[in-house]
């Protein structure tokens, strides 16, 4: 037995006691924070979201108004940083202690639904709500978030893309900047863009008229996309996708791959005040609806207009790719009725005009014509007239979204990789799409072998 002097034994004992106290304190903390801190015996509804910085008060305002509108539930929000929110959420569901409502920004509803992570929402709708949802909401709101016949994510905010263009650049080139006179075909737009390119004495680009990039952005206008609704299957190597990718790559080649790489790198990063559109590095830019509010804030004197991306010959007009955010109720949520009440309230299923206030605060597109026509939203459109183009787009049937397949994350990563390869000129567009199909087919057959159903 190793000798332990009494002094040492004492310090050892003290250490053990200290650790014990720590543990006891720790456990009591858990009991504290696990206890709901609600007022007046309301049922707590835990809500996790990722809106930070200037969006946090906007989010919390929705929560406050919901809490004030009824006395049964109290929503307790928790802001989680975006980068790891998914891991935290998944772990909490796995651990059996999920929040009751979770905002979801990743286009992973199908993946998560197959994993049994989310609860269906449409079963909770009353007939009136179902009627509103089915008949009044825009297609992009209604058609997304479904998996195997159930609605797992309620679409709240929708991003769509249209062409921003600088009026002065147009005038300089002798073109009328009136939106009604905007080129009506993609070919026309491309030619106009070419006219607007500027280079300096050594041949480096100083301004690009119109730079198409991103297969996902342009495929919809060509009638392409990644999912065939009729066959309910993924469709990658289609003639439309090939046309879209070829178009993009041709434009890149015209400008010069290397020159373009350096030019793109020289542009300011795309956020907020630094958007290259503002300083004139681009004359025409396909971008999302949130830019309208940003332009008003950072460049209120910039003269610009917005027009939908014109379709190429044989393509689809009023088309756009769309990324949406969702509200979900995880499996195992302890207060799912309260969760649904909150979602309903925010989405404005009973009163779209009231919910218009939240959409405008977030800078979101409306979810239904009734919301778009409400006084609040109309006032918003008056303030930001260029927003109207996006509202029109939101109502379009030609919106393309992430395919609702369980391997959608793998799919989108591979599409992005194939797109990157083609746009860098490492492979031809045809080869890129064929390689993409091969990768996805292999992944699907492996999943089948493992016993996943589609």
């Amino acid at each position, binding site marked *: 037995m190793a000798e332990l002097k009494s002094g040492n034994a004492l310090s050892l004992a003290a250490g053990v006691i200290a650790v014990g106290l720590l543990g006891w304190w720790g*456990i009591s903390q858990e009991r504290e924070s696990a206890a709901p801190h609600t007022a007046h015996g309301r049922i707590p509804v835990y809500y996790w979201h990722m809106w930070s910085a200037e969006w946090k008060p906007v989010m919390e305002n929705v929560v406050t108004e919901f809490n004030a509108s009824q006395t049964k539930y109290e929503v307790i929000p928790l802001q989680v940083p975006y980068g790891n929110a998914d891991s935290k959420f998944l772990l909490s569901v796995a651990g059996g*202690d999920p929040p009751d409502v979770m905002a979801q920004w990743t286009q992973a509803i199908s993946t998560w639904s197959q994993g049994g992570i989310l609860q269906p929402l449409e079963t909770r709708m009353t007939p009136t709500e179902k009627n509103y949802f089915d008949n009044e909401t825009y297609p992009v709101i209604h058609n997304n978030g479904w998996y195997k016949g159930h609605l797992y994510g309620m679409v709240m905010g929708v991003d769509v893309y249209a062409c921003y263009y600088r009026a002065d650049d147009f005038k300089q080139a002798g073109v009328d900047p009136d939106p009604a006179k905007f080129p009506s075909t993609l070919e026309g737009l491309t030619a106009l863009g070419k006219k607007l390119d500027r280079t300096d004495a050594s041949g480096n680009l100083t301004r690009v008229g119109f730079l198409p990039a991103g297969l996902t952005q342009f495929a919809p206008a060509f009638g392409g996309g990644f999912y065939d609704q009729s066959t309910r299957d993924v469709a990658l190597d289609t003639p439309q996708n090939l046309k879209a990718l070829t178009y993009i790559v041709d434009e890149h080649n015209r400008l010069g791959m290397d020159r373009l790489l350096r030019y793109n790198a020289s542009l300011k990063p795309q956020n907020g005040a630094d958007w290259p559109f503002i300083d004139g590095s681009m004359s025409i830019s396909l971008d999302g609806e949130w830019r309208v509010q940003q332009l008003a804030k950072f460049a209120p004197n910039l003269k610009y207009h917005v027009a939908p991306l014109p379709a190429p010959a044989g393509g689809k007009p009023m088309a756009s790719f769309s990324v949406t955010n969702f509200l979900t109720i995880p499996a195992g949520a302890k207060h799912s009725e309260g969760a649904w009440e909150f979602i309903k309230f925010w989405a404005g299923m009973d009163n779209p005009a009231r919910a218009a206030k939240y959409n405008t605060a977030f800078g979101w597109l409306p979810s239904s014509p009734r919301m778009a026509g409400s006084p609040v939203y109309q006032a918003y459109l008056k303030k930001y007239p260029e927003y109207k183009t996006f509202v029109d787009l939101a109502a379009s049937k030609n919106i393309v979204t992430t395919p609702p397949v369980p391997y959608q994350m793998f799919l989108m990563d591979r599409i992005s990789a194939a797109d990157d390869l083609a746009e860098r000129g490492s492979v031809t567009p045809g080869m890129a799409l064929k390689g993409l199909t091969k990768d996805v087919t292999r992944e699907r057959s492996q999943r089948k072998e493992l016993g996943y159903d589609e």
Partner: protein
Amino acid sequence: MSNLPVDAGTVGSTGFMAASRRSRAFLTGLSPAQRFLAHTALLLLCLPALLPLFWMVSTSLKPETQIFDHSGTFGLANLIPHPAQWNNYPKALEAVPFEIYLKNTLFLCAFTVIGAVSSSSLVAYGFARLDFRGKTPLFLLMISTIALPAQVTMVPVFTLFRWLHWYGTYLPMIVPSFCGVPFYIFLLTQFYRNLPMELAEAARVDGASEWRIYWQIMLPLSRPALATCALFQFLGTWNDFLGPLIYINDPNRYTLAYGLQQLLSTHGGEWASLMADSTIFVLPVVVLFFFTQKTFVQGIATTGSKN
């Protein structure tokens, strides 16, 4: 401090003294030419080390629109904010509940440092200086525990902590550090193995227990290593945001690292705030290091027994 048979500080016989004086003079006093060379090398190397940090600080002081200005020529002027927005700092401090986060972070740091250093040195002594059956396999097992990416153990670990009812507390981040951290165990093992055997042997002959040898001989001799471990653990806990993110749901219990993550939002990167917060985040550790580095380093070692 002890009645050990060997005094760890003696230098030696007279002949030796002269030589050691000479040697110490040689080793400590470089010729002016050598000093100049050394300074030049250091200054040159300082540039790549400092430049990114300088950019960080200068960005934190710029108004939002100036940050990515790529107009025309490049000059050092681009690095100097003009005019300097000192109020970016109070603004950044307001963006997150700084004092609360700082308090929480310091609390966690204190406990994890104490736990990690004390337990790791205990375990390291066992591996380095004692013999027991299965020592090598156990040592390799210990090292192997960091060879498995944490991504795939996150779910079972989380489940484990939930089962222990530690979810929502700081315990998942504190208690494991009291059970030895392989990184420090390995590091300290290397240090202990490199200490001369004579002191310990003599003490054993004198009838001292292993605990006494550990506590009164080994620990004091390994102060630089222990201080290094403490520094690294402090840094690790200071920078850890994954732990609080996953296990804590109460906004009042989050830490500085978590607050830093909170600043990144979509649709708009507030570079100035992010850089200001990063600079504030880094400052305490810098100060800590600057004032405690004597513990890690000294120009020439003067400890260790003579032969």
